[in-house]
């Protein structure tokens, strides 16, 4: 496609931006939002922007949401653009979610799972009724505390694997593929797929994940385990040579378990799809896990029949910043492109009409 520059319009653009900024602020009689309010009270939006921007910084994500007037895709775009201005110091050690300070942990397949089921601050059992008391800013009830000690919480996947029911995850310490540094080639390896899913648009992941449940890439998934909590971030500074703890991030991890009919070389067992997301994000982690499993189809010798099983399709369309750029660029001037097509259509029509008149 050819792009042809146009000139002019600076004054109109300045006026448009000024109007936009005034509209962003809203009624000046109403107090302005602070980033602390957004970070503290719109946590799910902040986490989604951080995931899709692929940058964990709640303060900046809150600022981006405010600047974008709550347009979360635009906010992720702003944050991802900011990311490019910073040098990369290195990589942290892999997050050990097995040592998570668990706030929530449920399994849909083991009711008596060792360590117990912990609902955490979930909305799963609310009635989805609008709470009009929030209009009056009523103080929330105090969250109860219980003193029973936290037991060890082995992963459900590890319990299944110990019984031989689940394909083991081969451990490895190879440096993973990095989408932000290397061009993606297909078939994409699983590390590249997981990175692409981790920053994918939540709506896209949800829709594609849902498609696998509805028979497009048929699988019958079970939520083996969902856990949410804080995980230490550790890295080894070059000048120290030993790991240091620099804080923690809250993560949601999901293991989806699917039946696998077995192949020529192995008997039937379960296979897992894996999801990991910033913050409290069951939906994102679950959808990611569904797609991670669906995209293993080719490796497992399953027929690849549905879009969700096709890594090239999923990864090429999951990124909402790329998608919005390409869709929205259509509104920018295409006068010359269109003119050439219009001339071609006029010519064809004239020829067809002339022929019809003969």
């Amino acid at each position, binding site marked *: 496609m050819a792009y042809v520059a146009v000139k002019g319009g600076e004054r109109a653009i300045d006026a448009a931006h000024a109007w936009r900024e005034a509209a962003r602020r809203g009624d000046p009689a109403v107090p302005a939002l602070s980033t602390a309010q957004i970070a503290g009270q719109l946590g799910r939006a902040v986490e989604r922007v951080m995931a899709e921007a692929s940058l964990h910084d709640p303060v900046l994500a809150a600022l981006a949401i405010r600047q974008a007037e709550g347009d979360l895709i635009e906010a992720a775009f702003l944050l991802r653009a900011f990311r490019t201005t910073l040098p990369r*110091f290195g990589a942290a050690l892999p997050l050990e979610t097995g040592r998570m300070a668990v706030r929530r942990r449920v399994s849909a397949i083991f009711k008596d799972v060792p360590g117990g089921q912990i609902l955490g601050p979930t909305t799963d059992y609310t009635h989805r009724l609008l709470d009009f008391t929030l209009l009056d800013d009523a103080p929330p009830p105090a969250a109860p505390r219980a003193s029973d000690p936290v037991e060890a919480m082995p992963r459900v996947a590890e319990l299944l694997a110990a019984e031989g029911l689940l394909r083991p995850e081969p451990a490895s310490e190879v440096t993973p593929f990095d989408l932000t540094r290397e061009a993606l080639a297909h078939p994409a390896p699983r590390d590249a797929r997981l990175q692409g899913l981790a920053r994918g648009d939540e709506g896209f992941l949800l829709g594609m994940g849902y498609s696998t449940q509805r028979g497009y890439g048929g699988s019958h998934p079970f939520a083996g385990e969902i856990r949410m909590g804080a995980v230490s971030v550790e890295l080894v500074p070059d000048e120290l040579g030993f790991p240091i703890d620099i804080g923690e991030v809250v993560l949601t991890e999901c293991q989806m378990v699917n039946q696998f009919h077995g192949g020529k070389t192995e008997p039937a067992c379960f296979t897992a799809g*894996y999801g990991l997301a910033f913050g409290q994000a069951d939906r994102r982690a679950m959808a990611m896990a569904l797609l991670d499993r669906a995209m293993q189809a080719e490796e497992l010798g399953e027929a690849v029949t549905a879009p969700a099983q096709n890594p090239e399709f999923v990864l090429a369309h999951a990124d909402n910043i790329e998608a919005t750029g390409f869709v929205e660029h259509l509104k920018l001037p295409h006068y010359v492109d269109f003119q050439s097509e219009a001339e071609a259509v006029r010519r064809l029509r004239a020829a067809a009409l002339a022929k019809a008149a003969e």
Partner: protein
Amino acid sequence: MLARADAARIAAALPPPDARPEARRLRGPETGLVMLRGRMGGTGAPFNLGEITVTRCTLRLRDGPVGHATIMGRDADHAELAALADALLQHPDFAAPLGETLIAPLAASQAAARADIAARAAATRVAFFTLQTMRG
């Protein structure tokens, strides 16, 4: 522990500038990115999850010790105060008192915060057997 602490709390516990050795910045405070990695299935091969902002600082006290800090986020003051505390904690004149006035209270409050979250989580512990009988 210093990385997780509040900057104001470190500042309050440090000796005033005229009562501590002068510090010279060697690097930073500077903000950059660190890539976070997960593991496939939680235990397998690593993959890149996404980046975090971090701020790091290295400084040297006039009489020797080098202090390092890397914190999450972009608070340059926090990184520099943490590096200064790290250096002073290696200094024979300051290590013991700072251990008492800074590190022990930080350890206690961070442990209390963790315990409080664990207690809230424990209050949401559930046994799903009743649900199973209801569903038949």
